[in-house]
C-alpha cells in the first residue's frame, strides 16, 4: 500500500504538471482560429464527440509551407548549441577550480555562484543593456584604455544574445559539474600520474570521463531552456535574431492564432523530447552492456 503510494506520487506529478497541460496545448493545436472567447473552435461546449471529429492537422501542415518556421527552429538550435558549448567552456574551469579549492572555501564559492539568483532574472538581463550599449560601460572602458577608438556595436546582435545566455545559465552548468568533480576520488588521478600520465593526459583520461554525467546534466540544463528562450533575444538581440520563442510570441499575441502557436509549441517539445529519449535509451543499453 505504502509502496504503491510512493510509486504513484511521481506519476501523479507527471500527469498533473506535464501530460494534462500538454494534452490541452495539443488539442488547441488541432483546432481552428476563431474570433470568440476562447479564440479557437471547436471547444468542449460543442460536446466531446463533435469536438474530436472537428480536429485536424491543418496547422501542422501550415508550418511546413512557410520557411520562416523551420528557419527559426534551426536558428534556435544553432544559438542554443553554440551557447551550450560556450557555457561549458566557461563553466568547466570554474567548477574545476571550485572542486580543487581548499575545503573551507568551497561553501563560499558555491554561494557566489548561487548569489545572482537572488536578483530577478529580468533585471540581470536588463543590466547587460547598460553594459553592452554603445554608450555602455564596456565601450567606455575599452575607449578609455585605448583599445578601440569607435564604440563596438554589441547590443542588438547575436553576440549579445550569446553573452546573455552564457551569463544567465552559467550556474546551471557549474553546479552539476561541480558536484561530479567534488565526488571525484583524488587518488585516481594520482594513480594515473604514477602510471606515467602527464597531468594533462590524466585530466583527459580520468577527470573528464568521470565528470561526464555532470557535463551531460549541465548541457541539458542549459540547452533546453536556451532553445525556447524569449526574454534574452528580445532584450539583447537585434531584429535579425530569429528564434522560435519570438515566433511563438508573435503567433500568440500579434496574430492571436492560438492554434498555430500551439502547433509551434508542440513541435518545439518534440524537438527536445525525441533526442533526450533516444539518448537515455542509448545510455541504458550501454549500462546494461557493461553489466
Amino acid at each position, binding site marked *: 500500500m505504502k509502496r504503491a503510494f510512493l510509486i504513484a506520487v511521481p506519476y501523479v506529478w507527471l500527469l498533473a504538471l506535464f501530460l494534462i497541460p500538454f494534452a490541452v496545448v495539443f488539442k488547441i493545436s488541432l483546432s481552428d*482560429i476563431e*474570433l*470568440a*472567447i*476562447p*479564440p479557437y473552435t471547436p471547444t468542449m461546449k460543442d460536446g466531446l464527440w463533435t469536438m474530436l471529429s472537428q480536429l485536424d492537422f491543418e496547422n501542422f501542415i501550415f508550418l511546413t509551407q*512557410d*520557411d*520562416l518556421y523551420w*528557419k*527559426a527552429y534551426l536558428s534556435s538550435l544553432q544559438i542554443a548549441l553554440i551557447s551550450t558549448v560556450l557555457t561549458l567552456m566557461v563553466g568547466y574551469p570554474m567548477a574545476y577550480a571550485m572542486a580543487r579549492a581548499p575545503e573551507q572555501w568551497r561553501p563560499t564559492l558555491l554561494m557566489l555562484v548561487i548569489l545572482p539568483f537572488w536578483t530577478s532574472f529580468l533585471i540581470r538581463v536588463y543590466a547587460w543593456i547598460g553594459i553592452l*550599449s*554603445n*554608450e555602455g560601460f564596456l565601450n567606455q572602458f575599452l575607449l578609455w584604455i585605448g583599445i578601440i577608438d569607435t564604440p563596438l556595436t554589441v547590443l*542588438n546582435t547575436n553576440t549579445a544574445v550569446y553573452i546573455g545566455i552564457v551569463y544567465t545559465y552559467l550556474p546551471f552548468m557549474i553546479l552539476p559539474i561541480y558536484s561530479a568533480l567534488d565526488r571525484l576520488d583524488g587518488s585516481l588521478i594520482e594513480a594515473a600520474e604514477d602510471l606515467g600520465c602527464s597531468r594533462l593526459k590524466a585530466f583527459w583520461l580520468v577527470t573528464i570521463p568521470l565528470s561526464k554525467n555532470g557535463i551531460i546534466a549541465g548541457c541539458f540544463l542549459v540547452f533546453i531552456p536556451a532553445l525556447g528562450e524569449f526574454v534574452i533575444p528580445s532584450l539583447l538581440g*537585434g*531584429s*535579425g*535574431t*530569429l528564434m522560435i520563442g519570438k*515566433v511563438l510570441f*508573435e503567433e*500568440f*499575441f*500579434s*496574430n*492571436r*492564432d492560438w492554434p498555430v502557436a500551439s502547433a509551434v509549441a508542440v513541435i518545439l517539445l518534440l524537438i527536445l523530447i525525441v533526442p533526450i529519449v533516444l539518448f537515455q535509451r542509448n545510455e541504458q543499453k550501454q549500462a546494461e552492456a557493461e553489466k
Partner: protein
Amino acid sequence: MKKMMLSTVALGALAGAAIADEVRVYNWSDYIDEDLLTKFEEETGIDLIYDVYDSNEVLETKMLAGGSGYDVVVPSNDFLQRQISAGVYQKLDASKLPNKVNMWDTIEARTSAFDPDNAYSINYMWGTTGIGANVLKVEEFLGPDTPLDSLDLIFNPENMEKLQDCGVHFLDAPTEMIPAALQYIGQDPNSQDPDVLAMAEPILAGVAPYVQKFHSSEYINALANGDICVAFGFSGDILQARDRAAEAENGVEIVYNPVSEGSLMWFDQMAIPADAPNVDNAHAFLNFMMDAQNMAAASNYVYYANGNLASQEFLVEDVIGDPAIYPNGATLEKLYTKSPYPAKVQRTVTRMWTKIKSGT
C-alpha cells in the same frame, strides 16, 4: 500611495470571487493621476482595485481567454473593435452615466467609426503617432531646415542612411508602421487589400537596414538620453522623452510632431467586459472619470489629450495650448484612423513585418 495600491492589488488577488463592494480597473501603466483613485474611493465608498498592463496584446489575450475578473479595461480603438465582435464587452447603460454630456462630439464622431453610437465604450485619452527628433543632432547629420514633421525623414533611404550612425528607432508594430508607409506613397493607409499592403514592404525594407531598433517603448529613454536622433512613436511617449531631457538638463532638445502628410490617430477607450462581476460599480467608475475636473486632472498628469469637452477649461496651458497634444484644426482634419485587420490579413501583415525586420 503606491504601497496602498500594491496592497489593494494583492488583497484583490487573494479575495478571489469576493462579493465586497469593489471595482476592478485594468488600465495602461503610468496612465492616471493616482490621487484620482483615492478620490474615487472617498466619494463613492467603493473599493478600487487598480491594476496595470503595458500592451494591447496582453489585455486582448486575457479578454479572449475570458473570466479576467476585471470590471473596467482600456483597450485601444482597433483592438476594441475586434473584441466587440468577439463578444468581449457589454453595452453601457446610459442612465447610469449622467456625465456623458461632458464628452466631446468631435472625438465621439471619430470613435463611433469603430464603436457605432459609442454603445460599448467611453474615450479615455487619444493621441497621434508621429516623429520625435533630437533637433540639434538631426541638424548636424542632415543640415539645417530639414523638415522634422515629414515622413520623408524616416522613409527616404538617403536621409536614413545619413541618420543611421546617429540612431533611429521604429515602433515594433506593423499596424502602425505599414499605414504610415502607405501614407508616404499616397495609398490609403487604412487599406486591408493585401496587394496594397504589399506596396508598403519595399518602402519599409528599404530603410530597415538603417533602423537601429524596432521597439515600442525603448525610444523614450533612448531619445531622452540623446542615444538616438529620431524615433517614430506615440505622441505621449515622445513628449515624455522631451520632458525627461528638459528635466535632466543634458543639452538634449526633443520635439514631437504629428506627421504633416497625416498621422494615425489612436484612442484608448474605457469599456466593461461582458463577464464583469461588478457592473454597477464599473459604471460608477466611468461616470466618475467623465467628470470634467477629474478628467482634466488625469490629462494634466499624463500629458495626453482626452475626449472630454467640459474638461478643457480645467486643463493647464502646457496641455491644452500644446499643438503636439491638442493639434489645431488643420492637423486634426488630416488625422486618420485605422480599422483592425481580419485574421488572415493580420497574419500576412505579421509575416511581412518579420520579413522586413529579419530578412527571412
